[in-house]
């Protein structure tokens, strides 16, 4: 058990979602749906799993987190602020002229390892990092977060084949499986299913979790590798827009920015979950 109880982490998720909406509203831009679906995963990674902090960010043995679905950057910005990488109020400049906090992750922002945003890059980068750890006999683990629409990029499958070939069991890919992309349902756009069997066939250990269940996420993400010699593929079943009922499962919130009225409604709903 880490620093926080499950209940404390659940409360953090609510606060993160509130902050994301606040800065998206200020910036008049953001990938709202995919931020909200990945919030609990990022929360558990940074508060319970990764040995990453502002203090050890220069340490070569720190764990690595590369956000392949870079568009959910508002979620990452809010969580990194909470970890102390920068004051949260910095995010008031998000997407504004000369701000380092642009709409996709860049290394200009403290705590970010790679510039991502073009989809389908994270897993290859992580395979390289994981391979380096093996070569250097370094203890760190490598995590990435991939979107389910993003899975169509062939580079994921190239890295997938290579990672099992090199037995990169220090590598964990989390799939934010919210079933939606911009055009609509993954299954209607370019069917990725069966996802689990495909990754198994690629030599990965595959597990499925409820991506909004803090306890389940902690249990899985703190106990990798599940099988020695195999990279781990975590299918996190999530809901796009999670936490704001009128956004949940609606494709228009992929990069929708709430109106004043919608914003008030969303904030009220989230605040009602604060203890």
């Amino acid at each position, binding site marked *: 058990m880490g620093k926080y109880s499950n209940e404390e982490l659940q409360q953090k998720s609510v606060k993160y979602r509130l902050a994301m909406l606040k800065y998206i509203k200020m*910036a008049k*831009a953001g990938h709202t749906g995919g931020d909200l679906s990945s919030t609990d995963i990022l929360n558990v990674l940074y508060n319970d799993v990764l040995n990453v902090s502002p203090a050890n960010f220069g340490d070569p043995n720190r764990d690595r987190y590369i956000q392949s679905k*870079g568009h959910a950057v508002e979620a990452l910005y809010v969580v990194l602020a909470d970890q102390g990488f920068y004051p949260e109020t910095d995010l008031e400049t998000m*997407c*504004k*002229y*000369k*701000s*380092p906090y*642009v*709409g*996709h992750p*860049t290394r*200009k922002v403290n705590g970010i390892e790679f*510039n*991502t*945003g*073009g*989809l*389908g890059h994270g897993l290859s980068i992580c395979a390289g990092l994981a391979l380096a750890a093996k070569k250097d006999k370094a203890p760190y683990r490598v995590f990435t977060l991939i979107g389910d*629409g*993003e899975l*169509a*990029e*062939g580079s994921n499958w190239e890295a997938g084949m290579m990672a099992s070939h090199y037995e990169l069991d220090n590598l964990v890919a989390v799939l934010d499986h919210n079933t939606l*992309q*911009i*055009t609509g349902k993954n299954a209607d*756009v*370019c069917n*990725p299913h069966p996802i689990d069997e495909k990754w198994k066939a690629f030599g990965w250990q595959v597990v499925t979790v409820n991506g909004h269940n803090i306890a389940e996420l902690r249990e899985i993400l703190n106990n990798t590798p599940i099988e020695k010699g195999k990279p781990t593929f975590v299918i996190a079943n999530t809901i796009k827009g999670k936490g704001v009922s009128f956004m949940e499962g609606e494709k228009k919130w992929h990069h929708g920015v709430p109106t004043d009225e919608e914003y008030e409604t969303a904030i009220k709903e989230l605040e009602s979950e604060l203890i």
Partner: protein
Amino acid sequence: MNIKDILITGKANLQAYCDTLLELAADDPNIIAVTSDSRESGKLTPFADKYPNQIVEVGIAEQNLVGVSAGLASTGKKVFTTSPGCFLATRSLEQVKNDVAYSDYPVNLIGISAGVSYGALGSTHHSLHDVAALRAINNMTIVVPADNFETKEAIKAAAVSPKPFYIKIGKKNMPHLHAENETFIIGKASTILEGADVAFIACGETVYPTVEAAQLLNKEGISARVISMHTIKPLDADVIIKAAKECKAFISVEEHSINGGLGEACASVILEAGLSVPFKRMGIPDEETVAGSQTEILEHYGISASGLSDEAKRLIKQLKHLTNEKYELK
């Protein structure tokens, strides 16, 4: 147009593209749009609703997108492959090079939300290198239309051409710079304004601030020629040479890196013709691009009415210094 004309805003060139494609598809079942989860960003949803059998969706997979497009085009289909310029031009560069350009199949690559249209989304989403990469590929025609008219004409020309095209368009509403009955020829630049003191050779969404700069300069008694170099390849060398000979200064303007784009293409033509003229490339310099909206980014790098007119005056002064010619600014 005339120097005193008030600019009237039209629709986005992206919208002009989609409207034209709808028109073309009305009597041509051979028109096919190919998308990579990009039909909404590409405003192609009405097209998809009207012609569900004429849109192919490949998912977020731009390399597959271009390969599939080449396969479709090889059977005689008129393929309009539509995806953000940043991904389309270089994520799929190998497919563009081998499957489309070298194999010589007429895929029309439509790079949408190009340049810094996605301003605040950051550099991963900017296409400031597409023209540079594609200029080096034999058999690619590259068009960067300035307004709705040029966009429509370029799309119509691409639809009947047996050659591959890359057409780069943005998503901001653009003022009309042409009358509907003007002629438009791929490879022949359009003169938007006549002038002899300074020549602006611009393309795409930067033609419009260039026209505004010319209007500012006109008030100070400086006449600016504005050329819309909509076709970057094949380049209209005659217009460039004429401008370099007739004007006191030469400024290229583009929403692209100053490396490898329109400006360098113009410089090559001028030098190879044995000419010399005070010259400046206006574009995005070789540095980490500043954050901001499209307009903020362009203004930051001097691509605005005031930035461009200041640059023109600076170059004209430089000429005065070089030649001791008596050229007074009013």
